[in-house]
C-alpha cells in the first residue's frame, strides 16, 4: 500500500519523520514490506527545506492523488509569535503559503478518491482548512491552532486523534506517532500497531474520536486563543 508523505517549504520535521518511521518499522519488521512509503511534493522530486534550522529532506516524487493508499500532510514549524505585517514568517503564514500551492487541488482530488485516506498531523489540517478543504469536517490540529481551525468552517474536535472516515487528523507534533500507529491499527489490526509500539518503546494515549455511538450530552468547550 502506498503511503505518500507530503513535503512543503517550512514543514515540521517531526510531523514527517514520526509517521515515516512508524510506517517504515511496521512495513519492514512486521508486514513483509507491505507499505511503499515515499516523501513527495506537489512540485515533484526536489529538496525541501523545513521550518527548523534549514533541515532539508528530499521529496522523491510528485504527490499523486490517484494512487490508492494513504496521504499524510504535516504541519509547519516556525515562530508562533510575530507580526506577519512586519515580515514574520509565523506558522499560520507558512501554512497559508502552502495552502496556496498546487498541493491543495491535488489533495482535494485525493479526498474525492474513495481509495485514498488523507491524514494530517499538527498544522497540516489547518493548511487543508485554509485551502477550503475541511468544510464541516471533524478535525483536530495543534492546540494553538484550534480557534483558527474552527474559524475556517471545520468542526474542531479536542482529541489527540480524530477519525472522520476518509480523513484522519492528529494534534500537536508528537501526535504523528499516534496517528501512524492508529492508521496501522485501522488498516492491519492491533497486533501490528502493538508490535511497533513495543519496538519504539512508545504507547499511544487518549481515545481516538469518531462520530459514532452516543454523543455526550454536553461537549467541553475549546478555550479561546
Amino acid at each position, binding site marked *: 500500500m502506498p503511503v505518500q508523505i507530503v513535503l512543503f517549504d517550512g514543514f515540521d520535521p517531526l510531523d514527517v519523520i514520526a509517521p515515516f518511521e512508524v510506517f517504515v518499522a511496521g512495513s519492514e519488521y512486521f508486514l513483509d514490506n507491505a507499505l511503499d512509503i515515499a516523501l513527495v511534493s506537489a512540485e515533484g522530486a526536489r529538496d525541501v527545506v523545513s521550518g527548523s534550522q534549514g533541515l532539508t529532506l528530499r521529496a522523491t516524487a510528485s504527490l499523486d492523488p490517484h494512487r490508492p493508499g494513504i496521504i499524510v500532510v504535516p504541519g509547519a514549524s516556525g515562530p508562533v509569535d510575530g507580526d506577519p505585517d512586519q515580515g514574520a514568517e509565523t506558522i499560520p503564514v507558512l501554512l497559508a503559503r502552502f495552502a496556496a500551492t498546487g498541493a491543495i487541488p491535488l489533495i482535494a482530488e485525493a479526498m474525492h478518491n474513495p481509495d485514498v485516506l488523507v491524514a494530517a498531523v499538527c498544522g497540516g489540517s489547518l493548511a487543508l482548512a485554509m485551502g477550503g478543504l475541511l468544510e464541516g469536517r471533524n478535525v483536530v490540529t495543534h492546540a494553538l491552532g484550534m*480557534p483558527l481551525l474552527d474559524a475556517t468552517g471545520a468542526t474542531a474536535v479536542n482529541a489527540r486523534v480524530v477519525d472522520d472516515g476518509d480523513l484522519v487528523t492528529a494534534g500537536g507534533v508528537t501526535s504523528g506517532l499516534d496517528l501512524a500507529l492508529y492508521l496501522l491499527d485501522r488498516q492491519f489490526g492491533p497486533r501490528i500497531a502493538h508490535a511497533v509500539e513495543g519496538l519504539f518503546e512508545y504507547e499511544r494515549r487518549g481515545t481516538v474520536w469518531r462520530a459514532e455511538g452516543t454523543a455526550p450530552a454536553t461537549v467541553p468547550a475549546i478555550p479561546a486563543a
Partner: protein
Amino acid sequence: MNPICGDWRLQMKTPIGTIEADYHFEEHDGVVTGTANGAGEAVALTDLVTRDTPDGPRVTWRQQITRPLRLNLEYDVTITGGTLAGESRAGRLPRTRVTGRRITA
C-alpha cells in the same frame, strides 16, 4: 439613504497579516445589502444590520471568505463621516481592528 451606502476600502488584521478588501453597499426599499471584493473573490455579506448609535451609524455583518484563506468573519464597525472603524472577528479568535475609508467606485 443609509450612511453605509456606497463604496469603501477596508483593512483588517488576520492571523496571516493585514488584508484589504473593497465593499459595496446599497439600499433598495429600505433593505441594505453589501458585497466584499478581495483577493479576486466577491462575497455577499449576510446578517447585515445597520442602526443609529450615539457614536454614529453602526453596521454589523458576517461574511465567508475563501481567499486568501477560508475564514468565517464577523464585522462590527461605526461610521464617522468618510471613515469607519471597528472590529472583526474570525470564529473564536481574538477581535482585531478594522479601519476603512470611503472610496469613489
